[in-house]
C-alpha cells in the first residue's frame, strides 16, 4: 500500500434528538484519512462538519448518538472500531488525545483560563506517557519551542490570557501534538484569527504533517484554504458528502453543482472589482424539515424532477465520487 489509511469512516449516521424531533445531522458519510495526508472537509455552517469530528472523537453532546456506520481507527495495534467503544471508557480515553488529537475553532475559549499553559500541556503528558514530573516540564518547553513560541522557558508558566490569539492556537497545537498523535483533527482552527496569523498556523500544521507523518483532518469553510493545504477534499452539504476526491481533481473538475457554487462564490484576485461573485441563492433547509431527495435541490439551478429522490454516491473515477443525478453532464461540460 502506498499510503497507510489512518482512519476509515463508513456509512456514518449521527442523529440529534430534541423535543422528540430528530435531526439527522450526519446521514451516511464515508471517507478515509490517509497517513501523512490532509483531508479537508468543506461546507457551510451546520452541514455536519463538526459533528463528524465529534463522532470520531466520541465527544458528541448527550442528546445525540451514532446510529449506524463504522469508524475504524487503524492504530499501531491493528484496527479499532471507535464507534463500538464506550464514550468515557478507558480504551476510548487512551485513543482520545494520544492517537487522535483535536484542536478547536476558538483558542480564546478552548484553553482553561485558570491553569498555566504548561499545566495544560503536562496534563496531557501525565495521562498518556510515562514521563516523570521533570521530564514533562522539559517536554512542555520543547513543544512550545517547536511551535515557534519565543522564550518558552518563561512562557510555559504563563496563563492563557497573557497569550495572543495566534499564540494560544499554537499552544493548543502544542497540547494536541504532545503525544505524537497519528491523526490531528482541526475544527476551523483559524476562523477566529487574523489572516496573517492564519497563514502561520497552517504553515505550522503543514510542517508537522511532513515531519511527523501526522494525518490531518481539517474542517473549514474556506475554499482558499482547501486549495492551499488539502491532499484530499470532501465537500459536505446537510449531512452528506456530496463530492469527494483528491484536491486537484475536485478543484479542477468539480461535478457537483454545490461544489461549483462554492468555488464560484470566491472572488479571484486580478479579475478586477467588477467581477461577478455568485452567491448561492436561498438558505440551507431546516434540519428538522429536510427535502426528501437531494438536499441541495431547492437551491440548485440544474434541478430536474428526479432530484426529489436521493441520488446515490457514484464514482466519477477511481478516487472521485459525487452524489448527483446529472454529474455526467457536468463532467463533460468542459469547465
Amino acid at each position, binding site marked *: 500500500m502506498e499510503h497507510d489509511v489512518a482512519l476509515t469512516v463508513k456509512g456514518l449516521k449521527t442523529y440529534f434528538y430534541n423535543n422528540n424531533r430528530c435531526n439527522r445531522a450526519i446521514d451516511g458519510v464515508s471517507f478515509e484519512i490517509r497517513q501523512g495526508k490532509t483531508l479537508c472537509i468543506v461546507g457551510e455552517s451546520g452541514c455536519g462538519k463538526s459533528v463528524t469530528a465529534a463522532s470520531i472523537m466520541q465527544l458528541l453532546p448527550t442528546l445525540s448518538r451514532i446510529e449506524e456506520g463504522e469508524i475504524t481507527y487503524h492504530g499501531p495495534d491493528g484496527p479499532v472500531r471507535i464507534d463500538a467503544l464506550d464514550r468515557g471508557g478507558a480504551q476510548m480515553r487512551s485513543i*482520545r488525545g494520544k492517537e487522535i488529537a*483535536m484542536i478547536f475553532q476558538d483558542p480564546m475559549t478552548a484553553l*482553561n483560563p*485558570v*491553569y498555566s499553559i504548561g499545566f495544560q500541556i503536562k496534563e496531557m503528558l501525565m495521562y498518556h506517557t510515562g514521563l516523570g514530573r521533570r521530564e514533562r516540564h522539559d517536554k512542555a518547553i520543547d513543544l512550545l519551542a517547536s511551535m515557534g513560541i519565543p522564550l518558552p522557558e518563561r512562557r510555559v508558566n504563563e496563563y492563557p490570557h497573557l497569550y495572543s490569539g495566534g499564540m494560544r492556537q499554537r499552544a493548543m497545537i502544542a497540547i494536541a501534538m504532545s503525544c505524537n498523535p497519528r491523526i490531528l483533527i482541526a475544527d476551523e482552527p483559524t476562523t477566529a484569527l487574523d489572516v496573517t496569523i492564519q497563514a502561520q498556523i497552517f504553515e505550522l500544521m503543514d510542517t508537522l504533517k511532513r515531519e511527523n507523518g501526522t494525518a490531518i483532518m481539517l474542517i473549514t469553510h474556506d475554499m482558499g484554504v482547501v486549495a492551499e493545504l488539502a491532499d484530499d477534499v470532501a465537500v459536505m452539504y446537510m449531512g452528506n458528502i456530496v463530492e469527494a476526491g483528491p484536491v486537484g481533481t475536485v478543484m479542477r473538475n468539480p461535478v457537483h453543482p454545490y461544489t461549483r457554487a462554492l468555488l464560484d462564490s470566491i472572488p479571484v484576485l486580478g479579475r478586477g472589482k467588477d467581477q461577478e461573485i455568485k452567491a448561492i441563492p436561498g438558505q440551507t433547509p431546516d434540519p428538522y424539515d429536510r427535502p426528501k431527495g437531494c438536499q441541495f435541490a431547492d437551491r440548485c439551478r440544474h434541478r430536474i424532477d428526479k432530484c426529489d429522490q436521493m441520488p446515490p454516491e457514484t464514482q466519477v473515477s477511481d478516487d472521485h465520487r459525487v452524489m448527483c443525478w446529472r454529474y455526467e453532464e457536468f463532467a463533460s461540460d468542459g469547465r
Partner: protein
Amino acid sequence: MLTYIARRLLTLIPMVIVISFLIYLGLELTPGDAVSHMIPPDAYGSMDPDRLQELRESLGLGKPFAVRYWIWISGVVQGDFGYSLAGGVPIADIFLDRLPATLELSFAALLISTILGSILGTISALTRGSATDQGLTVVGMLGVSIPEFFFGLVAILVFAINLDWLPVGGRTLPGYDSFWDRLPNLVMPALVLSIMMTAGVMRYARSSMLDALSRDFIRTARSKGMPEWRVNILHGFRVALTPVIVLIGFRLPVLIGGSVIIEQVFQWPGIGKEFVSAVRSQDYPLVMMVALFSVLAVLIASLIVDLLTAIIDPRVRLGE
C-alpha cells in the same frame, strides 16, 4: 500584594469615617436623647425644665452636633468605646466578652454552608435533570424561603426537647470551658444559621458549575482523554469556584446579621443578642458601636473576597 493590602486598608479609613458619621447622624435624628432615656418617663414629665437643661449641659449634650461627633469618634479611635447606658459597663468589655461567641457561631456556619453548599451544588449540576437534582432544588428553595427562626424553633423542639440529643441553648456551662465541651451547644445554632446560606451557595454553585461545564475548555479537556472526574473537578469546579467565593464573601455580613435572630432563639451570648437588648433599652452608645462593627465586618469581608479571587483566578492581578 502586600502594598495592595496596605493600600486597601488605607482606603477603608475614609469609608469608615463617612459611615460612622452616618450612624451618628441617624441616632441623632431619632426622638429623645440620653437624658430622656436615663430618667423614667413619669419622673421626666414632672421635672423642672431648667434642671433638665442643666443635666444636658453637664453631660456635654448642649455642645453642637459636630463637636459631639468629634468627641465620640476620637474616643473610638483611641480605643475608648464609651459606656453602655444599661449598667455603665465599658462597651469594650462587652465586645471582648461577646465577640468570640459571635465569631465562633458565624464561622462555624460559614464553614458548614461553604462546604455543604459547594458539594451539593456540584452534585446537582453534574446530575442535572435527575431526581437528585430536582430534590436538591426543592430543598434549596425551602431553605431559602423559610425563615431561620422557624427552623431554630423546630430544631429545638425536635432535637433538644423530644429527642434530647442536644442542649436547648446557651453556649457553655460553668466549669466546662474547652471547645469540645461547648461543641454540642454550637451544633444546632450553627446548623440552623447555615441553612439559608447553604441553600443559597448550593443554587449558586449549581448554576456556576453548569456555566463552567458548558464552556469550550471542558471539551478541550475531554479531548485530551482524561477521565470524567478530572474534567469535572479540576476543570469545571475550579472555574466555577470563583463566583461562589465572591458570593460567600459578600454573605459574611448577612451571616452576622442573621446571627442576631439565631442568638436570640438559642440564647447564644453573642453580640447579636446584646444588640437586640441594646436597641430595646435604647442603649444608643452600644447600638452605635455594634453598627460600626458590622460595617467593619462588611468592609473587611470585601477585602478578603478580593484577595481570594486574586489567588484563585490568575486573570485577576492586584495592584498593577
